[in-house]
């Protein structure tokens, strides 16, 4: 999970990294109590905030939209006189398969600039490389502490500034430099949530608050470790509801759907043999959207997910959707108990009046993307002639 700047800076402070004097404004009515020159910084999750007008010396930025994200909190900071700027971060590298430190001169725009990456031995912890500036060793050690203590995927300071005034007392002493983190970008490892002392509220990278469906879907797996369903669920703008199986297969199928002009109403996946109750809840959430033109229940040939259980969960959810879905429902699945599931589905479809189109493992998985697109948009084509 990506943190807001003010949250990241709290973690920095906890580990002794200097940050400018600041105040968090949570409403346009909040008064600025900092004295002297200040800078207003919109608290948004998208990058390139400065280019999008999210940083200002005059205006408190409330009411603005930055890269599609409404500004709801503003961090006011004392303006500092910057002597030198650096980039410093710790992250995990798939090349070394362990942590790395990235360091470079410059501030914003550093992605294009020159940075150097150093391998860090996770068993020994951070040890300063020989060519690393001595005045930054202390802050690097503290950032390493943030990175490991809070189980981060990324802990980044950009820019990391050298200033002439003590950030807490504002006094300057000749010859004395201070190292201050002017920005904070932290990505927490979600898989470590269970052991992290500090909890942060859920957020959404789409630059909008989580939808009701997204919040509901995430609850399905809470406290129930039997398989997964709904932990990953995003509402999208389209009209074909998707219930996809498998972390990998679901993406293959989304690729296929989109390449044929299908517009998915959501993305979600279930895997690891979830019980039927989970599928029932997920189905109700996925299909409660208005104006759907079709539903695609799709997955590969499962290793151990019980297809009968998951499809019966789907049917149980389907029966509770109102109004009753009268759009085409294309099902493609394979795996344990698939034949038994298909036989029963066929009967249910005929008896209860659902437009099921059922495909087993003989039919290529991605070829059913065309089936759902053709069926769902059949009426549109007729109208266009």
């Amino acid at each position, binding site marked *: 999970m990506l943190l807001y700047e003010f949250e990241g800076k709290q973690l920095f402070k906890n580990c002794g990294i200097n940050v400018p004097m600041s105040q968090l404004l949570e409403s346009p009515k909040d008064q600025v109590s900092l004295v002297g020159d200040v800078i207003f910084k919109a608290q948004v999750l998208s990058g390139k905030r400065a280019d999008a007008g999210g940083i200002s010396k005059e205006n408190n930025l409330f009411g603005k939209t930055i890269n599609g994200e409404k500004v709801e909190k503003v961090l006011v900071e004392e303006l500092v006189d910057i002597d030198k700027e650096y980039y410093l971060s710790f992250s995990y590298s798939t090349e070394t398969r362990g942590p790395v430190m990235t360091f470079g001169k410059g501030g914003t725009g550093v992605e294009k600039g020159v940075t150097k990456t150093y391998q860090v031995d996770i068993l020994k912890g951070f040890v300063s490389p020989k060519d690393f500036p001595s005045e930054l060793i202390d802050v690097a050690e503290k950032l390493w502490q943030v990175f490991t203590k809070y189980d981060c995927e990324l802990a980044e300071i950009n820019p990391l500034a050298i200033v002439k005034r003590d950030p807490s007392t504002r006094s300057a002493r000749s010859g004395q430099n201070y190292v201050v983190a002017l920005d904070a970008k932290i990505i927490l490892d979600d*898989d470590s949530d269970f052991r992290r002392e500090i909890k942060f509220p859920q957020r959404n990278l789409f630059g909008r608050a989580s939808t009701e469906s997204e919040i509901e879907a995430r609850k399905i797996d809470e406290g129930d470790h039997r398989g997964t369903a709904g932990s990953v669920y995003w509402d999208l703008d389209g009209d074909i509801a998707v219930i996809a*199986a498998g972390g990998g297969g679901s*993406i*293959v199928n989304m690729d296929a759907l989109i390449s044929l002009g299908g517009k998915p109403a959501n993305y979600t996946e279930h895997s690891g043999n979830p019980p039927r109750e989970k599928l029932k809840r997920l189905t109700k959430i996925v299909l409660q959207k208005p104006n759907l033109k079709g539903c695609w229940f799709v997955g590969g040939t*499962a290793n151990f997910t019980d297809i009968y259980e998951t499809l019966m969960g789907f049917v149980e959810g389907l029966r509770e959707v109102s109004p009753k879905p009268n759009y085409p429902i294309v099902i493609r699945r394979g795996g344990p108990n698939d034949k038994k599931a298909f036989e029963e589905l066929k009967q249910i479809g005929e008896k209860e009046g659902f437009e099921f189109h059922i495909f087993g493992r003989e039919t290529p998985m991605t070829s059913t993307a065309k089936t759902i697109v053709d069926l769902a948009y059949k009426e549109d084509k007729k109208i266009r002639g």
Partner: protein
Amino acid sequence: MAILVTDKTRVLVQGITGKEGSKVALQMRNYGTKVLAGVTPGKGGQEVQGIPVYNSIEEALKNHPTINTSFIAVPNFAAFGAMEEAISNKIPLINVLTEHIPIKDTAKAIALARGNGSQIGSGTRIVGPSSIGIISPGIGKVGSIGGDDPRGVYSKGSVGVISKSGGMASEVSWILTKKGIGQSTVVGIGGDILTGCTFADLLEDFEKDEQTKTVVIFGEIGGTYEEDAAEMIKNKKFTKKVVAFISGLFAESLPAGTKLGHAGAIVYGEKGSYKSKIKSLEAAGVIIAKTPDEIPSLV
């Protein structure tokens, strides 16, 4: 001959008294794999499906010195401890089914297995975390790959399969089997950011394996494992035919950093993008399948 899982494979199950552990132990045995023992601390002396349970690996090894593979199915908070125990007991191969292991724990286990920072690592290989398992059709399997009955989907042959996705390992093998093309070994490396075995690591094994003539790679956006494999192929360290399928174009229409089904399938900027992977694989002479169903005609 196949890779990783051979007729010499002797398996220990860590977490054998748990639901997944006991289920998979039985599956492996039913497929002809020799499962010698299980470990669950505090439950030594019991039996699961007739398999003896010990309190520690040390104890299990004392009674079954031929154990050379450990299958780990413990909860995520206990996974590092389990991997550490297997590594310090010098088990040559460990397969980790557990999902949602903290990335720091995986990084520590990988470092321990490599042996940096201490003496205990002795070249233990970790396949996983979040791995569906390893199957050498007709010989045996480690992990939940193929479920109760792998026979319908997996068949013996000369195509090696490496997949980040467990479901796609199965789907790709089924597509091949349906066309009469068998597999030498199918490996699910898991979709986490950090994995114990990468495409490149396993290509090294497949290069040496006489049974394997062609390798199919199922990759997806995020990370650099596909690019690393391409580099290796380009440098002629792998000389057999490679067919690759890469998924994740859809994800690139979403905001950077959006979480999908696999932790590793996450893109920030150019790095790990669909384009970057296809470009480097094509430059290395790898054949790209546009849909999974094209794969049989390309191998």
